[in-house]
């Protein structure tokens, strides 16, 4: 049992921190970048590719580096510390993760190779209007005609769906179950309407009308379980990203308390404020522990154990993230309400992360359904 990074992991962290921190240390730069489409810096995306970051999770045969979950988590934390807008989570972890888990060897080499090289942005079009956070597709359907598959229905919101070069679209299969299909960004019958989200991110409505797609993996195969596991891993990585953002929020808040003066003294003179900062620290440390643990469970656990760990860390991040975010704004006061100061946008991003893959109450519901099935939790027996 070891909760520390080895030398290589520290080197990776420092390298990513150097690259991302250099770009977005100045919050005004992020603000400018997210104002214009595609909502991130294409050159920065290319630099991440050069560093090997975009291929981190994928095997060497697929054009990647073959790194483990701890390394992916390190990248997510570093991106979270500056809320860097590049779509690592949506494109590499989620969409790329599904192609890696379910694609054929050719599909993996082609799609992941281009993704790792920074030549292609990938997006997983899964969420459907009127539905919440399941692993299956229902309203987007797949139809087979010989070797040709077409898709019909609407996906929304789809992260970076308008910019994506390739969409991975989940769809209800004719014989039941959920499949996934690779759809080119310029495919016929595809209408993409992109928009900005409140945290400077990008999402899109993806309308499919008899749109051709090639089945991911064997045609007609039910991929619900693969989708579920990739979503679980993404939840854990989103938690890593949220942790990075929470760390920045606490640091910003304590710095502010030490420098801002009212009534002729700095704010840290007031115990009503410092005690609340102490509670933020407690929330952050508890979150940190669950994030590290759940990240390690990805490597050590069964899909069921990864699912449970994903629910647990998401619940903690939801509770802890809201606490730290709300208090960060309150302890700053009016300045944190402004768009030109970073704190408000960090809170906005935490709010988005909370709702992309299942919020705290959703996870509470999931965990509640299983609570009678075991005696006590043992985090080391995975």
């Amino acid at each position, binding site marked *: 049992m070891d909760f520390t990074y080895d030398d290589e992991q520290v080197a990776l962290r420092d390298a990513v921190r150097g690259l991302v921190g250099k770009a977005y240390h100045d919050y005004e730069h992020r603000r400018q970048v997210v104002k214009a489409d595609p909502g991130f810096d294409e050159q920065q995306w290319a630099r991440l590719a050069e560093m090997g970051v975009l291929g981190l999770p994928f095997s060497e045969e697929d054009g990647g580096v073959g790194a483990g979950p701890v390394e992916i988590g390190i990248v997510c934390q570093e991106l979270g510390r500056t809320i860097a807008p590049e779509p690592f989570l949506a494109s590499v972890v989620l969409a790329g993760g599904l192609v890696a888990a379910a694609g054929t060897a050719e599909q993996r080499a082609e799609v992941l190779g281009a993704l790792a090289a920074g030549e292609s942005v990938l997006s997983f079009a899964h969420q459907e209007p009127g539905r919440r956070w399941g692993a299956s597709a229902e309203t987007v359907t797949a139809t087979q005609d010989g070797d040709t598959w077409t898709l019909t229905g609407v996906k929304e919101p789809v992260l970076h769906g308008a910019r994506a070069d390739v969409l991975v679209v989940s769809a209800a299969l004719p014989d039941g179950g959920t499949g996934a299909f690779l759809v080119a960004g310029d495919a016929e019958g595809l209408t993409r309407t992109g928009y900005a989200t409140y945290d400077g991110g990008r999402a899109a409505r993806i309308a499919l009308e008899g749109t051709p797609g090639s089945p991911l993996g064997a045609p007609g195969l039910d991929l619900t379980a693969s989708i579920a596991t990739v979503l679980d891993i993404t939840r854990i990585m989103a938690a890593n990203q949220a942790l990075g953002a929470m760390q920045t929020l606490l640091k910003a808040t304590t710095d502010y308390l030490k420098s801002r003066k009212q009534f002729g003294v700095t704010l840290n003179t007031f115990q009503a404020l410092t005690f609340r900062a*102490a509670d933020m*620290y407690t929330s952050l440390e508890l979150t940190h522990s*669950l994030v590290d643990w759940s990240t390690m*469970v990805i490597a050590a656990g069964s899909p069921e154990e990864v699912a449970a760990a994903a629910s647990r860390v998401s619940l903690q991040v939801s509770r802890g993230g809201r606490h730290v975010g709300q208090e960060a704004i309150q302890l700053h006061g009016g300045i944190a309400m402004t768009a030109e100061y970073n704190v408000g946008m960090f809170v906005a991003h935490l709010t988005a992360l909370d709702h992309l893959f299942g919020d705290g109450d959703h996870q509470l519901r999931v965990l*509640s*359904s299983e609570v009678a099935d075991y005696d006590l939790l043992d985090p080391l027996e995975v």
Partner: protein
Amino acid sequence: MQLELSEDDQEFRAEMRAFFTTGVSEEIRRTVIEGRELTRDQIVEAQQTLNAAGLAVPHWPEEYGGRGWSELRRHIWHEEMQRAGVPTPLAFNASMIGPVIAHFGTEEQKQQFLPKTANLDIWWSQGFSEPDAGSDLASLRTTAVKDGDDWVVNGQKTWTTLGQFGDWIFTLVRTDPDVKKQAGISMLLIDMTSPGLEVRPIELIDGGFEVNEVWFEDVRVPGANLVGELNGGWTIAKFLLGNERVGVAPVGATKRILARAKDLAKETSDGEGGTLLDDPLVRARIVELENELLALELTALRVVAHSAGGEPHPASSVLKLKGTELQQAVSELMVDLAGPASVASGAGDESDLPDWARTVTPTYLNLRKASIYGGSNEIQRQIISRTILGL
């Protein structure tokens, strides 16, 4: 980063679990698990069983019974003990005065006290708090004045837990009233049978008498019972309180009680054909508590993994703060599960209500103390905001 325990540590854990579940009196463990009060003799028996197996004071220096374990093994030892319902060694002996004497005591004091302290042949009481010195411990007023080779002690200590069983009491006394308050304090070991020493019980809100006032009226204490340097008591107190904070998050015991709460909810009728565990609100409350306890347990593991250098991990204040909050929250859940039966604390053997339901409210009320002792949770927030956050 790696989740699994090493093979050696897994084996160690299995060994601890086997001993605690088979080598310690079943009756004593059942008393703990069912939340009933242990007698003095049971507490002594449990500690002597542990001591005979070399498991009472593993964190002491090896020459006095310590085992030289890693922080992780100490953590495993502590968790497994709680999980099995084994009473942890008396904190006043094992966590407080034992390490102090081993670190600051004279050779004679070590010989005289350490073996008996480990074996609970001497039951120690703690004489720190006073009516006007709670969180502000350094403002204590009990005095010790030199008279020949002896010290003459006058004053009053309070909140002395289990002082009614005490043989000896370790006290902080004012030995120099003319300097900064922290600089005039010394530690004295006092035989509780000394003339002029009186223990008076304090009835608490749970109806019990676990704490006491200890009065000193011209109590003569041999000069040889001074621990460490004259006027060096504050350093010793900080050393002792630092140790106290680490062991004060009862993760294993709280987990065990929460698991029991779940069992009881499963077997308790909701009066409408189902059980309490069918209620989504009860389930959600249990899940939230389990998750917070999981986060706390993992934080404790992160802390022990980082404490190898000797300095406590900065997050150790989080353990005390959150650990006691969760301990209290689980006791509160137990009261709510018992429902109307929770009122019947005084019911006797002829009662139709379940035994467990009669003890839950006194326990809940009793545990309000947890966020007050060991450095109140407000003191912990102060430590976090000052020491960790630099505020």
